[in-house]
């Protein structure tokens, strides 16, 4: 699978979109000690697929996401996104981290606009209004980050990635710092947004139910150094309605199975 095949192949749904081949990452700290975060990791994500990554704390999930985002160097064979080897961040990728990276001196509208401003574009008011509406932030356009709740901030951060209309969304525990109720609500919104926009998504999470509810596939990483130890397909029907999906026996079976793998049940 070379770089050449990409442009044509990528147009067809389900074509290979992300590919990591034997990717390793070792951190060297100032005192010379080494931390092997990832070891010969292989990973594949298809176009418009929603893939979640579960794994114990410190196993290298954030590292993995940073490498896919082109934010971090790596050792190993190759990282390919949309047919191109990754060496630096791409304009058609949106990244959301656990802490909302909002600029305190910009209000909600200006923070959303930053996503495209950096490409030298401006966010027209119709698109802004639609995004604000989709995020459930109507009426808060001119509020500043310190006037928002944690969940609202995360929604703005997600919106900032979405206004770029990225082909790929990389989400690193975007709702991890929130309480369970808010988190559930935002997951439902994320599900709705994804079903409307159909992006390729890689979501790092600690929540098994979140992973099962949202994903087409869940990858379970081992403890450090991280490797994919299990690739679990989630064959729940789409579009998913959160309540009925959660009540289905298949949902409970998958949650139970993943829980066992993760050693929490």
């Amino acid at each position, binding site marked *: 699978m070379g770089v050449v095949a990409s442009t044509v192949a990528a147009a067809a749904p389900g074509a290979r979109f992300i590919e990591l081949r034997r990717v390793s990452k070792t951190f060297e700290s100032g005192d010379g000690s080494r931390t092997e975060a990832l070891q010969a990791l292989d990973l594949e994500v298809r176009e418009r697929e929603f893939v979640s990554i579960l794994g114990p704390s410190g196993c290298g999930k954030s590292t993995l996401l940073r490498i896919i985002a082109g934010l971090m160097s790596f050792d190993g064979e190759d990282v390919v996104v949309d047919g191109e080897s990754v060496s630096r961040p791409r304009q058609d990728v949106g990244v959301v981290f656990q802490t909302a990276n909002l600029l305190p001196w910009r209000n909600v509208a200006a923070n959303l606009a930053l996503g495209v401003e*950096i490409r030298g574009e401006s966010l027209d008011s119709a698109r802004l209004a639609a995004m604000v509406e989709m995020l459930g932030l109507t009426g808060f356009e001119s509020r*500043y980050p310190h006037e928002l709740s944690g969940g609202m901030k995360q929604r703005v951060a997600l919106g900032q990635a979405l206004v770029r209309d990225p082909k790929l969304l990389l989400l690193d525990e975007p709702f991890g710092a929130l309480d369970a109720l808010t988190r559930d609500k935002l997951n439902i919104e994320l599900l709705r947004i994804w079903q409307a926009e159909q992006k390729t998504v890689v979501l790092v999470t600690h929540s098994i139910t979140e992973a099962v509810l949202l994903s087409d596939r869940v990858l379970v990483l081992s403890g450090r150094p991280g490797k994919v130890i299990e690739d679990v397909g989630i064959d729940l029907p789409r579009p998913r309605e959160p309540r009925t999906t959660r009540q289905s026996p298949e949902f409970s079976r998958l949650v139970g199975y993943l829980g066992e793998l993760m050693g929490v049940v």
Partner: protein
Amino acid sequence: MKHQVVRHALQSGAFFLALGLLWEGSVRVFEIRSYLLPPLSAIVRELVSSRALLFRHLFITLEEVLLGFVLAVLGGALMAVAVFFIPIAKRTIYPLLIGLQSIPKVGLAPLIVVWFGYGVTSKVVMSFLFAFFPIVISALGGLAGTPSHLVEHFRALGAPPWITFWKLRVPSALPSFVDGCKVAMPLAVIGAVVGEFVGSNEGLGNLILLSTSSSRGSLTFAALAAVTALSLGLFAIVAGLGKWVWWRAQ
């Protein structure tokens, strides 16, 4: 709430009134000679009767301070940016700056006057020297203190360096920079006055010096009051402008 504000204002007012009365009273009771410490009332009278003289000197000092301060703000910001972005500047100019800063500037004043003359220029230079360093340090601290997660975020957005500079580093350095300017403002006044002490024909520092040597205590104090008012006023302006950088609170 409002009631409390009034009460607090009354407390402060009463305190300073008492202090003024104590001054006035003790100078009279102990018959202190007026070139040592004039009564408060004499200073107030002097402020009124010599206002033309005071204003003339005040404007000279104001001019020196403003020029010195504005140059320090511009030069300090540029220097901070240079030291931050040019690695070789960090290894050469920055240590030089630290070294120069350690020379007592008051001790430099006679040299500065010899180099730049008795006129306004030497005072501008003194004012600049006093104000420059805190501005550089605060701007540098602000630039370096840009949260690394935001820097990474800009990288993830694919922002070119100049956009990261203007849209991230500059705004996040501003609160610290404003703090530096607030510290530097009264220092700029001190610099100019020290320059005037060492060699000048005019300015409030000159007036303080001359009136002391001719034993005109009330004029000395009136000139001191004028310097203080100048310093306070300029500080208030800088602090007021600094409020525009409201996100400092976070």
